């Protein structure tokens, strides 16, 4: 099979890589649902404080498409609904009882999938609250059930820092994977692309049906689904829709159809220099970070990130892990100011540029923390950001057009193919300390609203 080899990019040499050891986080006492996790859903509540919910019972629905539900990841009582600014619901807190009562859905076996109608599949996914695991590009929102995509993408080669290793995940169990793929194939009738790493040894992937297997190699972001879409089925315009689902969520889709209950478990990694044990943890959807990190001491000056360090969300221990996140990163928080830092040889500075001595030893001895390492300046096109973007996109010009709010040029320069996560390394490496990923986000929001 042809391997698509990408050269541009970088794998962060960040300390605290998770070791291949899986522990069970156990049963939490409390779960949280954060409506803000679901881009594109305008939440309307279906429960109030004091209500009892079963696992898989609806908690909220989407105002614009009422069939779209978000359901409870555990059975218990709704104890708190946290309302933020302008009456937006920030969190729904559920205290679990031990009943584990579940909503039941229809069960199917693998042989029956070809006979299923796409509408049956769609309604089962929507009713169970599992539909939101399917997201769409452009704009990275929850997939619109009324618009079929031209293809479905699944990345089985995540390259983000601390991301769970696919081979290791599959070793822990791949129940439901084939079922999930068949369901997606039957639902869309379009190609389902599974992208594996060049060295993925899992023979299992090669034996899957209803799927087109690709192999990509290269440093991060070569494992990002946006990069795969760009090289396999680029997004032409705002109506050219591609869906994407994470590998674990495909297994959950399969699990739902095989067992008839909403699967709520997933395996996540815990990594970073500021946490004692870096490993794989089996958790339940909606668990708080403090429960995931239970018995795993975190240093005092540490930043908790739901997701990976390049794209994740800064959180406190009481926050739940993001719906789409499969990594908890714990990194050193620092605001230390180096005396004449720009003048020193910089043996301990982490940089992808050849401007510091640390480059000679491959950034060994350099520790990444949360410092910006400089002040914001006007962008000077040194070519740094181009060197970490493995796409046929000219980022400097795209950024200029976004800042100029020129929709026509943004479209021509390929804004629909872009996603902030693919530009995270551009933000990382930019010498003028511009928030490039944020600019891309703004550009996408602007064309979505005004295009």
């Amino acid at each position: 099979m042809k391997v698509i080899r990408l050269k541009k990019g970088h794998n962060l040499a960040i300390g605290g890589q998770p070791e291949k050891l899986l522990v069970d986080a156990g049963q939490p006492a409390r779960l949280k649902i954060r409506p803000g996790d679901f881009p594109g859903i305008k939440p309307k509540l279906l429960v109030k404080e004091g209500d009892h919910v079963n696992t898989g019972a609806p908690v909220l629905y989407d105002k614009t498409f009422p069939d779209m539900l978000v359901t409870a990841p555990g059975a218990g009582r709704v104890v708190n609904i946290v309302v933020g600014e302008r009456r937006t619901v920030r969190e729904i807190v559920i205290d679990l009882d031990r009943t584990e009562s579940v909503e039941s859905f229809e069960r199917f076996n693998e042989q029956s999938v070809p006979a299923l109608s796409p509408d049956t599949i769609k309604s089962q996914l929507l009713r169970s609250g599992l539909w939101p695991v399917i997201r769409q590009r452009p704009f990275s929102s929850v997939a619109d059930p009324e618009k079929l995509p031209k293809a479905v993408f699944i990345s089985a080669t995540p390259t983000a820092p601390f991301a769970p290793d696919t081979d290791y995940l599959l070793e822990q169990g791949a129940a439901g994977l084939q079922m999930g793929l068949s369901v997606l194939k039957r639902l869309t009738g379009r190609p389902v692309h599974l992208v594996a790493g060049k060295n993925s040894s899992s023979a299992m992937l090669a034996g899957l049906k209803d799927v087109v297997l690709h192999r990509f190699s290269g440093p991060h972001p070569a494992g990002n689904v946006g990069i795969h879409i760009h090289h396999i089925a680029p997004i032409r315009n705002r109506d050219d829709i591609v869906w994407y689902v994470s590998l674990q969520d495909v297994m959950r889709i399969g699990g739902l159809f095989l067992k008839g209950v909403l699967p709520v478990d997933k395996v996540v990694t815990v990594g970073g220099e500021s946490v004692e044990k870096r490993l794989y943890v089996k958790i339940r959807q909606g668990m708080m970070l403090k429960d995931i990190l239970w018995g795993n001491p975190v240093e005092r000056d540490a930043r908790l990130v739901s997701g990976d360090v390049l794209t994740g969300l800064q959180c406190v221990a009481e926050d739940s892990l993001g719906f789409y996140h499969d990594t908890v990163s714990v990194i050193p928080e620092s605001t230390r100011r180096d005396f004449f830092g720009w003048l020193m040889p910089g043996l301990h500075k982490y940089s992808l540029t050849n401007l510091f001595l640390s480059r000679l030893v491959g950034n060994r001895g350099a520790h990444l923390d949360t410092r910006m390492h400089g002040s914001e300046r006007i962008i000077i096109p040194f070519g740094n950001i181009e060197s970490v973007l493995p796409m046929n996109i000219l980022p400097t010009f795209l950024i200029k057009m976004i800042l100029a709010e020129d929709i026509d040029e943004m479209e021509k320069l390929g804004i629909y193919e872009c996603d902030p996560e693919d530009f995270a390394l551009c933000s990382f490496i930019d010498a003028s300390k511009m928030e490039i990923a944020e600019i891309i986000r703004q550009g996408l929001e602007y064309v979505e609203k005004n295009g």
Partner: protein
Amino acid sequence: MGALRTFLDRIEPHFSKGGKWERLFPLYEMVDTIFYVPGTATAVAPHVRDAVDMKRSMFTVIIALMPALVFGIYNTGYQADPGAGFLQNVMTGGSAVVPLILVSYIVGGLWEVLFAVIRRHEVNEGFLVTGLLLPMTLPPDIPLWMVAMGISFGIVIGKEVTGGTGYNIFNPALIARAFIFFAYPAEMSGDPVWTLADDLTAATPLAVAASVPGDDAVSLVAAAGYTLKDMFVGLIPGSVAGTSTLAVLAGAVVLIVSRIANWRIMAGGLIGLVTAAILANLLAPASENTMLSLSPLYHGVMGGFAFGIVFMATDPVSAAQTDKGRWIYGILIGALCVMIRVLNQAFAEGIMLSILLGNAFAPMIDYFVLRQNIAKRQKAYAKQ
């Protein structure tokens, strides 16, 4: 060290919003961040950042300029009195060159801070490069007030009127030099200006090569006592730091290894120069113009070509900003440099004007590269 930090932290409230010197915040920010790298933590993802910043990037350019500057100081003294000995030469050179740099930095710095305060943006580090580049390209005995005029023009007209750092169309240092060149030609061209000594006139090799119609350029240069080795090392009359191809090459290595300057521009410049010089050589027998017969090697080591293509043409803002565009831009500058030297005898040196022309063409070059990129994407869209 701790005391300085305490002091800076103590006076900070006066400069931040609501303080009595709020308007002067850019000045505070400048001083504060010179001593200490800002301690801000990331507010949005990515949560970790590369250690690179604008100060480090621009400082690297300064380092790259050092070999040329140090050699330039020595050469300035050497040209004034070759027999005086190394130390004396450095002293003489230093006393001529250091005032030029000081005036350029002080006057230019005032403009920079003034604009930063009025337009409420930070003081940009790029000025450190501009302020040093200008005196390095001037004749050593230029009056100081002209340096002041030049850098003022370069900063205000060359940079600030088009929006400031990052928005300039032309390289500000080169605009400054061009201003002096056209406003005060007597101090910037002709034979007497290139050495400090008043009684000594020394024609630059380029002027020599064009001096006697019908003769052979190489033999004219040799007759004036300039060997290829002298010209490569740089012990010839010329601008302060532009004479030594060797020292410039040392700087080029720094810029290329650090990737602060794009090597494609330099390589393109060399290709353009060599190609245009060979074409000129082919035409040489048909004309009285001696410059036509000058070989590419001579073009490369004579005058300011090396300095210009390495330090001036590679300014990332005024150069082309796409990789393909950088090739075209470099080739254009190299070829134009030879054309101006050979065909327009009014200007013995062509690199300054060719880079300014290159700057003017850069946006158009990028425009076409951009259209090509768009077309390529359309093709990929159609193919799937």
